[in-house]
């Protein structure tokens, strides 16, 4: 009877990244095959489409969402703080940005308007994350559940506003607010639905977060806090403050993205589920796929954005959305396997 033992592998980070990349590509291959088999579409056509999504700039629209949120979540996850509330933080950021754009005079001012809106959005996201953060820091309440719950509260709050007090005067029957003033809109790159500024900001965060996590004392403390809070405390750094900081940062980045969604994409406030659209959850995978390493995050965000865009491109009648969810879920399952392969090896002896 062969015996199985699982042993840790200590791969250098580059090799580990290569292994994951390999499995990620295999994942795409499997996805293509299954799509073509189950839906009866020619495999080559599917491959063309899939490869196409990886090469078309359209998917940058999603990169702008996944990259910053993933970076923010990485900060929290390094400290083993399970912030699962990115969805809600994105939505609240959107609400705040919509408020500034629609209901304050700033909304009509160029440059200042959008900046103020984005600032408000970041703040809103940060504060939304702060409640579960405080509960965790001071009362040790499990943050996975509280952040999850806050997602639903955010959806409901947003829906209340959209269907209620903020309902657009000019749009009947459709649940949304008015369009935001032109001054607040972030202009698109010609032919696509994303703004260059948003992309720049998203990419700019990569070195910032990287330096923070790996070159500063506080960042190092955050990374250590997850596995050994006592060691961090004994080094003179307050655990509660670190927790609050982690939630603040991840919430702020998610909020920023939410604000950007309003200013750049929707240009109005829509029901909560449409704003988050599950992207908050997908960002969690983006963070882990990159092994929480900011330097690898652009790559993992790119991969996931392309897949996400693939969802839109798949045409299967009314079943597009759930089928897409199913398949992307399967690909993520493969990613979990890839994480295993890169970290452990199986030893079999007789």
């Amino acid at each position, binding site marked *: 009877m062969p015996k199985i033992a699982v042993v840790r592998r200590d791969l250098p980070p580059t090799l580990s990244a290569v292994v994951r990349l390999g499995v990620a590509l295999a994942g795409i291959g499997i996805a293509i095959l299954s799509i073509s088999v189950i839906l009866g579409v020619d495999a080559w056509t599917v491959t063309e489409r899939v490869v196409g999504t990886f090469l078309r700039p359209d998917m940058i629209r999603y990169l702008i969402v996944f990259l910053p949120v993933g970076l923010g979540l990485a900060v929290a996850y390094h400290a083993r703080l399970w912030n699962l509330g990115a969805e809600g933080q994105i939505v609240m950021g959107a609400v705040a940005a919509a408020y500034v754009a629609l209901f304050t005079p700033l909304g009509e001012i160029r440059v200042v308007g959008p900046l103020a809106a984005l600032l408000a959005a970041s703040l809103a996201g940060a504060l939304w994350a702060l409640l579960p953060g405080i509960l965790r820091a001071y009362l*040790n309440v499990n943050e996975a559940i509280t952040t999850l719950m806050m997602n639903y509260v955010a959806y409901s709050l947003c829906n209340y506003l959209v269907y209620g007090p903020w309902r657009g005067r000019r749009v009947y029957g459709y649940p949304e607010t008015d369009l935001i003033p032109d001054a607040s809109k972030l202009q698109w790159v010609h032919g696509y639905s994303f703004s260059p500024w948003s992309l720049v900001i998203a990419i700019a965060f990569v070195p910032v977060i990287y330096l923070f996590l790996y070159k500063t004392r506080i960042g190092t403390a955050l990374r250590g806090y997850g596995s050994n809070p006592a060691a961090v405390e004994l080094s003179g750094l307050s655990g509660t403050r670190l927790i609050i900081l982690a939630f603040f940062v991840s919430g702020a980045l998610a909020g920023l993205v939410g604000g950007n969604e309003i200013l750049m994409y929707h240009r109005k406030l829509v029901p909560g589920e449409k704003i988050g659209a599950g992207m908050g959850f997908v960002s969690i995978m983006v963070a882990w796929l990159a092994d929480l390493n900011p330097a690898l995050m652009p790559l993992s965000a790119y991969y996931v954005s392309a897949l996400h865009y693939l969802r839109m491109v798949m045409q299967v009648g009314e079943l597009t959305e*759930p089928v897409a969810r199913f398949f992307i879920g399967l690909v993520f399952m493969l990613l979990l396997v890839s994480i295993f392969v890169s970290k452990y090896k199986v030893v079999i002896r007789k």
Partner: protein
Amino acid sequence: MIVEELFESFFLFLLLAAVGDIIVERSGVLNLGIDGFITLIFALCYSATIAYGPIASLALVLVAGALYALLIALFVNLLHSSHVLTGLVANMVFYGLSVLIGYWGLDLATERGVPRTLLISIPLDWRTVLALSILAVSATWVFLYRTRIGTAVRACGYNPRSADYLGVNVWRTRLLSLVLGYIIIALGGYVYVLFYSKAWTPYIGMGYGFLALALAISSLWHPLLIALPTVIFSYLLRSLYVYQLEYGISQYILSMIPYLASIIFITAVIASPLGKKLPIPKALGEIYYKEERAA
């Protein structure tokens, strides 16, 4: 009659889901995948009942529970995956799958000219519900606190490394907990579809899993404490519509309430003296890895 109001099918569903979750999490497995599972079971149960009738549907649903448990165990045990990621990914996959299964059922009903709403003639009166609830709760208690296996389960939740040294097979125990727990949760889903909603809409069930989790946490994973919060919650949830109609409060504000209430509940329990006294599964969510360079 208040008793009739309290002990009905929705409550039974929530209770079974929460109790099943307790069994799973007591072994140290953080059970985020319960939400995707419930969504799946609702669809599966509905469609299977349309296609094969209620008895076969019950069998199918229980088998699905065992299989789902197996899948989670594979990731959490062998692949050493983070429990959180496993749960979230499973949710993603099975949310999608549930819609496909549900539509299959709806189409089948249309094809066969059968009404889309399930018509079940067996009533579920409050006495039955109460009896089943008491059975579920006490059986779980006996299992966890009075059997050998139950003690092993709790050991894995408290300290898997010590449990391993005591000769407990942590993987096998977690697998067993998962299977047992998910079968019970599946049963709860069956109750919901056949006796409460009797219908299916896309994504119905989403959020109930997390509610069950919240209930489990707020009862400190103790089966004897779970009944009270569950009764309160199920009553509140069902009454929401009434409040909307009677007092004209926006449905959106009302839909926030269960979630906010969960947060308040959990906080209150954990901060209370009870929270400090009862031993909780400390190792919840801990990826159990055997070989460490430790003295």
